[in-house]
């Protein structure tokens, strides 16, 4: 009788073990990157306003010209 109880207990534990598993879902990733959101880090280039697209584009243009075009210096 005691042995039967042990076997029953073991069987029950195995049968219920799946109940503790977490459900797995697809597509739980963060939203894709959609461009600079305006967050400002300590490394940011001086003189441009984070989040201001026009300022960013202007800054990039200036950086490209002064940094790379040695005929324009």
């Amino acid at each position: 009788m005691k042995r039967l109880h042990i076997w029953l207990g073991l069987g029950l534990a195995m049968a219920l073990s799946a109940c503790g598993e977490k459900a797995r879902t697809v597509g739980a990733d963060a939203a894709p990157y959609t461009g600079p959101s305006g967050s400002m880090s300590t490394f940011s280039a001086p003189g441009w306003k984070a989040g201001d697209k026009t300022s960013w584009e202007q800054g990039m243009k200036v950086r490209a010209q002064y940094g790379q075009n040695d005929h324009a210096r």
Partner: protein
Amino acid sequence: MARMKFICDTERCIECNGCVTACKNEHEVPWGVNRRRVVTLNDGVPGERSISVACMHCSDAPCMAVCPVNCFYKTDEGVVLHDKDVCIGCGYCSYACPFGAPQFPSQGTFGVRGKMDKCTFCAGGPEANGSQAEFEKYGRNRLAEGKLPACAEMCSTKALLAGDGDVVADIFRNRVLKRNKGAEVWGWGTAYGSRSQAREGGKS
């Protein structure tokens, strides 16, 4: 709308590998992965040329077209990026890419192959700009800091140009004109030869 592009001026490139070093240092790229490399044609022969190559952030990117899990996306600035959480490391993108840009680290989630890693135009990934998670997966996000890619900004001879396609094309065109050259220095005829050149070659 900016369309971020690289141009390498082969007349100026001196094969110093400063761009490669800058990239590896900026993003702490692991051993064995080269997001950028310098290729030399006709090495040791007079007239040899070197060109710095990385992801060219194609307007119609073949890697995006072949990816079975759609992990690639394009930012508003025309930068082709990928989500490492979605990538399965299958390697299709490396077969599709004409520049050999996709790299596969030997250590990582998928053992020998690893998740794909490539040049991000210093624009990070889908995580929050400048976050630790973004840095660990993709490296620094210089674009969000108002800066151009480290490789181009570090280039000692300014052979490697990066930025808005119109701006860098303008800089390059200006250089070519200063060298007293014209449209013959780039394009199909220069790369593959014109019909008249082929005929002349056949005669001799």
